[in-house]
């Protein structure tokens, strides 16, 4: 059930004694996620919430508590170190919630994670949830509902919004994945679409994109070529002014300005139902399922 996480997920929380880490560790435990370890260097030997052993290193969390998945809540300047450490320790899935990680750090981290055979989700993402089973990250557990629609999104709260609207309309989710909005991320749309296509519990997918980059166009192409399940999509930023962060050179490199119009056209051209507003997702899913 679900993708990337499930009943066999044994989670280590990196930064478990921090403000966000401790809050969300508790939330995940309350949701039913098996939180088997926490890591805070120098606090090895202590216990979190009277139940979860804290280790100095992720390697210890893996060898002594059997962790196979890590979620990262450390400050931005230490996030790359934390990802390196998790990959080196041999966990197979790393979810980095941290926002504000320098691009230069991610450039170095990404090939390392790939070489170690791990999957990274994020950074700057809300994580993922399999309703009724397991959540890793910060997605609010109360808005999801068990079902068969896969949700994948580059956004944070916009993801909540769409999940909320689906749930209110009685449409449950097989899994919801926030892949993060940064320029460099570990898992992209195509990775998630492929996983949803393979997942027997998923019958349709909602894909929430944003302006910038070309990941949505690549995903649209993938949907046309490799997916049998219906996909509907929304692009945030239709009214956004031309991006101030990405200069001309970026557009030449990618062969695209990364506008919402381009992305929506790519969706349309490749048979993806295009939602003009988040609420349309619900109608499109109902139509196509």
């Amino acid at each position, binding site marked *: 059930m679900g993708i990337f996480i499930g009943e066999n997920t044994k989670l280590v929380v990196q930064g478990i004694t921090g403000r966000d880490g401790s809050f969300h560790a508790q939330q995940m435990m309350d949701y039913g996620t098996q939180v088997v370890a926490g890591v805070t260097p120098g606090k090895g030997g202590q216990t979190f919430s009277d139940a979860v052993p804290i280790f100095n290193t992720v390697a210890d969390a893996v060898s002594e508590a059997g962790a196979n998945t890590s979620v990262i809540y450390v400050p931005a300047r230490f996030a790359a170190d934390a990802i390196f450490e998790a990959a080196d320790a041999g966990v197979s899935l790393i979810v980095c919630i941290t926002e504000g990680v320098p691009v*230069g750090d991610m450039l170095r981290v990404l090939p390392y994670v790939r070489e170690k055979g791990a999957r990274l989700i994020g950074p700057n993402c809300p994580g993922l949830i399999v309703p009724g089973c397991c959540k890793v990250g910060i*997605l609010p557990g109360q808005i999801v509902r068990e079902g068969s629609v896969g949700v994948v999104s580059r956004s*944070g709260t916009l993801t*909540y919004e769409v999940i909320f609207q689906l749930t209110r309309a009685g449409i449950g989710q097989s899994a919801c994945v926030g892949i993060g909005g940064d320029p460099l991320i570990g898992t992209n749309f195509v990775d998630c679409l492929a996983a949803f296509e393979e997942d027997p519990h998923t019958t349709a997918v909602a894909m929430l994109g944003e302006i910038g980059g070309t990941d949505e166009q690549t995903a649209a192409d993938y949907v046309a070529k490799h997916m049998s399940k219906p996909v509907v999509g929304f692009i*945030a930023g239709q009214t956004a002014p031309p991006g101030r962060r990405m200069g001309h050179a970026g557009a030449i*490199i990618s062969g695209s300005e990364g506008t919402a119009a381009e992305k929506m056209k790519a969706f349309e051209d490749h048979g993806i139902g295009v939602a003009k507003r988040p609420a349309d997702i619900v109608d499109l899913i109902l139509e196509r399922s």
Partner: protein
Amino acid sequence: MNIHEYQARQILSDHGVPVPAGEVARTPDEAAAAAERLGGSVVVKAQVHAGGRGKAGGVKLAKTSDEAREKAGEILGMDIKGITVRAVLVAPTEDIASEAYVGIVMDRAKQADTIMVSAEGGVDIEEVAATMPDAIRKLAVDPRYGLLNHQAAGLGHFLYDDPKAARQVSSIIVKLYQAYRASGATLAEINPMIVTSDGEVKAIDAKMNIDDNALFRMPEIEAFRDVESENPAEVRAREAELTYIQLDGNVGCCVNGAGLAMATMDLVKYYGGDPANFLDIGGSSNPDKVVAALQLISEDPNVKSILFNIFGGITRCDDVANGIVEATSRIDLQVPITIRLTGTNEELGVKILADNGFEAMVDMDEAVKTAVERGQ
């Protein structure tokens, strides 16, 4: 963060890139004095964070220091794409034999810094890309190895047939890449890179963007920040840790999360309104941020209606509600406010609002529709 040309020149020069002498001037007299010191004819260039300054008349030649004073006087105070020019760069003119383009940009799809060079420099590189794509060579740098010498040499031979120029430019490319990496840049461009008539390769122009997230490591680059040349409201927003971009619509938006903020703006448009801004209060629960956000929006004279769209996650609805109550008690709002509030601690937030006379909605579409109507 954008930095000025003169600042980028400084960084490049510190890394050994040959950049001709140049001085910054903030008054016509300073420009004249700089031209005097440099001797001979100079070019006076507006220092603004906006493209197309040449077409806008922000770059002028001056043969004498008197002429430099005059041209600087014309450029200083000029408005380029809404930004007032407060400084000019005065640099010697060069005897140019040919112009090339050298740039580095982070390529999201390849997940690598990518170097682009073209012998067709001095012009709009986008046009070169569109009309003669073969004139551009791209090289993705493997972040594990960095730029390798032979790769830089290969780019040098692509740019110039002359072995000496090729060798010079490949060494410059290596230094440019070092400067780019050391500064946490996501873009560095030299356009034009020139060969002088006596065969020297020099960087005549320089443009760099710095990754905001990397600035904590580089206080010396953070110090380059020129708040005077930015939108004052945006500067204040940054100081309050908000992301704010001013637009010219009539519906002021205050949202948590960038994606939801954009989707909210889209929905404003969808229902016939026009967003007055992009404003993301982020994932924090600090009521002060809400106060600062409302302050910014309410100061925009175009705003006729204010919309809050909050989906609580990390952000708690009660904190936002408290912020709204606090802010409205301090600010004398002249326009209607529409509040959508759902998610973490929703009930508490709604109660706080109700106790203070505010109504909260749960449905996003309904809230946006209402805010648009109220702004008409």
